[in-house]
């Protein structure tokens, strides 16, 4: 049954290939019309194609803007957390008192976590702003 089906299909394929109508001769007038219409086409792509130097120029501008933005934003981030005044000279007693204070780790957990959160927030903000400006320029 299967062999008969395969034979049938093979014969059908052969018949389809053999009886496919041949191609007609080239219709020269039609080709001429198409070629003529191509000559009338406005130059596509020329208006969209950028000058080769544009890419390099755009990259340089983007790099410059990135540097400027970093220079502007970095001091602002620093100003949010102004530097603490230098420590005054301290005595051994005060150092021991300080060590005693540091001896209880629970007291440092809160301030360190807050500081870490602040730093993280600042970094995220800075990265987002720089990315946004850079992408706006590039795209």
């Amino acid at each position, binding site marked *: 049954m299967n062999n008969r089906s395969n034979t*049938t*299909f093979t*014969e*059908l*394929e052969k*018949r*389809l*290939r053999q*009886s*496919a*109508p041949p*191609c*007609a*001769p*080239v*219709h*020269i007038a*039609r*080709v001429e*019309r*198409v*070629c003529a*219409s*191509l*000559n009338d*086409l406005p*130059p*596509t*792509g020329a208006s969209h194609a950028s000058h080769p130097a544009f890419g390099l120029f755009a990259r340089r501008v983007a790099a410059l803007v990135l540097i400027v933005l970093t220079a502007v934003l970095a001091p602002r981030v620093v100003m949010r957390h102004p530097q603490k005044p230098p420590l005054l000279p301290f005595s051994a007693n005060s150092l021991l008192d300080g060590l005693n204070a540091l001896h209880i780790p629970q007291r440092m957990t809160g301030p360190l976590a807050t500081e870490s959160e602040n730093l993280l927030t600042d970094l995220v903000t800075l990265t987002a702003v720089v990315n946004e400006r850079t992408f706006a320029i590039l795209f």
Partner: protein
Amino acid sequence: MTQGEAQAFRIVAEALEPRLERFFAQLGVPTSDRDDLFQETCLRLYRGAASYDARRPFLPWALTVARRVMLNWHRARKPTVELDEARCVADTLRPVPESSDADDVWAFARARLPAAAYELLWLRYGEGLEPAEIAAVTRRTPVHVRVLLHRARAALAAALEHDGTGI
């Protein structure tokens, strides 16, 4: 357009014209519209030449463009209807040859098979494309094309048997 481009395009157009004429004729485009479809296809090929991958055969790419142009033409000439009905409309509007004699197996197939099945048979045995190339032309997977081709062959064989002429 430079002189070299014009000459190259003329060579391509001359080589393509008989193939596209036969392709459009087999898929039911009337003679009066084939000129427009050929011109539109050539313009699209010219505009999209940059997207052609020279490592691949040219004819399937050209037939892909020609088929899209033909489908746009089909959509433009008939009103929009539901998908299920559209298939019926396409089948009813398809010009049925006057002689659907089984001696002319292509005319017989065109009269008896759905348009999609006939198109696949034509691309496979008329144009000589491989199933993978047909899949690219018709935007199907190669496996799907093989299955549809098998069904089309089976339907055609059954129709020939039923008609009493055999294969």
